[in-house]
């Protein structure tokens, strides 16, 4: 049962004392309200043929597991040990030096010791030792081995759905042990038992059937975009006419569907539309491959591959030459490190060359997919855009590096270059909290539900704390990023920790600064708010 939000009298009297010291192996996980997501619905699991599909709730005693669930998990571990050197190695070589212990935002912000990355890993390692190592089989607990009981399974679930696979721990580990990788394995195991969350399995099912996480059907996508076009017309006087599923376009554009759905992602989408229009780019959107993100990545490698397959399939069907990808974090980890391996080779595409500047994107010559920040940075560098950064003068901007793009790709300076060219006030957050050491928003890997708000708030605290610092010192009022999940969740985080800081995508700022041919004099920004210095005329 989930722990309720009141103290029992005997808990109260304990407050001033250190809790009795028990080893972590003997302290089962307590399911605290507001820290975990609702369980998956059977119908969503069925859509993608996941095992043990049924409605379930983590808070209930009975998880409705199959009879032989232990066997399934152990088989699953064995299978993955054989498939992933990373997994096997990371199970074996941790020396428990503790260097990673205080690097996790959930530990820093929340203080639960099992959120230390090393301990998160030990939860799975203890099972591994018991069933897969000689010493664990013989010595048991003294060798750090544990029987796979229901309590252990629940503990695994609870803490593996409190890891955002941000890889920050991996940066500091002397052997590069990456808890994100171990969490992926752990989550795959839970998925063998149908133990997914609603917030992940829903979007996965949507994406599978309808092409995007939000389940937007084709006509809804076009009308969503119509909305933006109306607003763009209001702002600039220009009517843009993008195309959908158009065969023979040069470029396919794929972005996370969140950008079509919720503010402030929508403003970023407007930015894309304006930029491409201004360039006269021969490109098309797709309603079938209408999702850049990949919640499948938070369930299993196979599911992620199934969802990702649509991008190349659609590129092939439409006969485009190459692909541009919008602003998203985990989407780019997937594209950078997985897509080509899963669904390549993309030999039906051509090596990407910018039609505007002629620049060859050498670094994407195999995937044939270019990050929009790379694309735009190249345009600016070659002087192809007319920009008026003063239109963003109302904003004092800081930059949040998303975990995945920072530690699973390394796109750090391209967006900064763009940012410096489209706005005049840019302030970095403190050094320990950006670039490869960036702090997570606390809501990645499908943890951006509402029911676990408390977890999100504490997980995002280290990030918010750094934002607060630049807010207090430089008056920063805008947190820019290239991640759809950030745009969907940082707002909430800011509202709690640093009110008066808003959140935006990079290309919203580009859209604001972009001087378009034939536009009327702008008085509003993309949010339909008066431009700096234009208030009087309003």
């Amino acid at each position: 049962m989930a722990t309720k939000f009141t103290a029992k009298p005997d808990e109260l009297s304990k407050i001033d004392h250190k809790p009795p010291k028990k080893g972590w192996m003997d302290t089962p996980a307590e399911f605290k309200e507001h820290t975990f997501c609702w369980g998956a619905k059977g119908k969503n699991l069925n859509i993608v043929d996941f095992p043990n599909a049924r409605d379930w709730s983590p808070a209930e005693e009975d998880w409705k597991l199959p009879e032989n669930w232990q066997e399934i998990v152990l088989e699953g571990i064995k299978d993955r040990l054989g498939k992933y050197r990373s997994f096997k190695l990371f199970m074996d070589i941790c020396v428990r030096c503790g260097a990673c212990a205080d690097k996790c935002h959930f530990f820093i912000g929340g203080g639960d010791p099992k959120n230390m990355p090393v301990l998160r890993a030990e939860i799975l390692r203890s099972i591994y030792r018991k069933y897969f190592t000689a010493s664990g089989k013989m010595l048991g607990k003294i060798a750090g081995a544990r029987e796979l009981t229901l309590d252990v399974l629940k503990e695994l679930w609870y803490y593996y759905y409190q890891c955002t696979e941000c890889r920050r721990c991996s940066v500091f580990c002397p052997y590069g042990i990456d808890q994100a990788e171990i969490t992926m394995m752990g989550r795959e195991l839970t998925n063998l038992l149908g133990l997914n969350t609603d917030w992940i399995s829903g979007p996965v099912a949507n994406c599978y059937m309808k092409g995007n996480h939000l389940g937007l059907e084709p006509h809804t996508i076009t009308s969503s975009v119509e909305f933006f076009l109306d607003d763009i017309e209001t702002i600039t006087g220009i009517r843009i006419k993008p195309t959908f599923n158009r065969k023979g376009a040069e470029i396919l554009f794929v972005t996370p569907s969140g950008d079509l759905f919720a503010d402030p992602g929508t403003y970023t989408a407007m930015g894309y539309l304006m930029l491409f229009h201004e360039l006269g780019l021969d490109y098309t959107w797709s309603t079938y491959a209408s999702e850049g993100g990949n919640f499948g990545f938070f369930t299993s490698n196979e599911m992620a591959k199934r969802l990702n397959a649509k991008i190349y399939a659609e590129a092939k069907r439409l006969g485009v030459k190459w692909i541009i990808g919008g602003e998203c974090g985990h989407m780019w980890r997937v594209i950078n490190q997985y897509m080509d391996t899963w669904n390549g080779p993309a030999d039906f595409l051509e090596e990407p060359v910018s039609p505007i500047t002629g620049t060859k994107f050498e670094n994407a010559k195999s995937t044939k997919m270019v990050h929009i920040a790379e694309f735009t940075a190249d345009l600016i560098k070659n002087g192809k855009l007319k920009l008026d950064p003063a239109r963003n003068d109302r904003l004092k901007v800081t930059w949040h590096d998303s975990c995945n793009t920072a530690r699973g790709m390394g796109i750090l300076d391209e967006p900064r270059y763009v940012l410096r060219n489209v706005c005049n006030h840019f302030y970095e957050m403190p050094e320990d909290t950006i670039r490869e050491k960036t702090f997570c928003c606390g809501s990645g890997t499908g943890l951006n539900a509402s029911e676990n708000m408390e977890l999100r708030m504490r997980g995002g605290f280290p990030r918010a704390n750094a934002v607060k610092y630049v807010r207090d010192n430089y008056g920063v009022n805008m947190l820019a990023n290239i991640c759809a999940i950030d745009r969907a969740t940082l707002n909430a985080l800011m509202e709690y920790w640093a009110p008066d800081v808003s959140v935006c995508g990079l290309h919203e700022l580009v859209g604001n600064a972009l001087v378009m041919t034939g536009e009327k004099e702008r008085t509003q920004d993309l949010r339909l708010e008066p431009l700096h210095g234009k208030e009087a005329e309003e």
Partner: protein
Amino acid sequence: MKLNSLLADKKASILEKWFDVIIESYPPDTSNFLKNQSNRFANPAGSAISQGIENIFDELLRGLNQGNTLQFLDNIVRIRAVQDFTPSQALSFIFPLKRIIREELTVEIAGSQLSDEILALESKIDDLALSAFDIYMKCREKIYEIKANEVKSMTFRLLQMANLINTEGHESDFKGNDKLKIKRGEVKK
């Protein structure tokens, strides 16, 4: 104001003890981290607490400036409001200050006429606790509000799209119907 100068003398050790008591409400593995990691970005919670109590203590001596004190309390309470504590546990950090002060000043209290001043101070600390409770409630309400807003804006969008879906030949119809055209921006909180 003899008490104040005594307190000012003992400030360092009072704060240290107070900090320790607060920190001890966390699991030992965590408390060590909160205590020893002094980088304010690597350890935002620990530094907010140590900064916070120092400021609050200074305010107490200076005679509580409402606005300031609330801000300092807020910095601590806001964190504890999302940290797995029950409400009583989250706010329990204020009361030990009374005990600590009495312990620190045992000798001085016994040998002089401080009891009135002590009582006055203690009632100020009680006031602190009450304010902290207000803040705590505000934080929790905020969380629920954020939650509700997320759900609301999502539902709103869905409805908005459903409208489109249900309108035959939606584009023209929709355009003509101004009531349906909800201005973006209203979608925001």
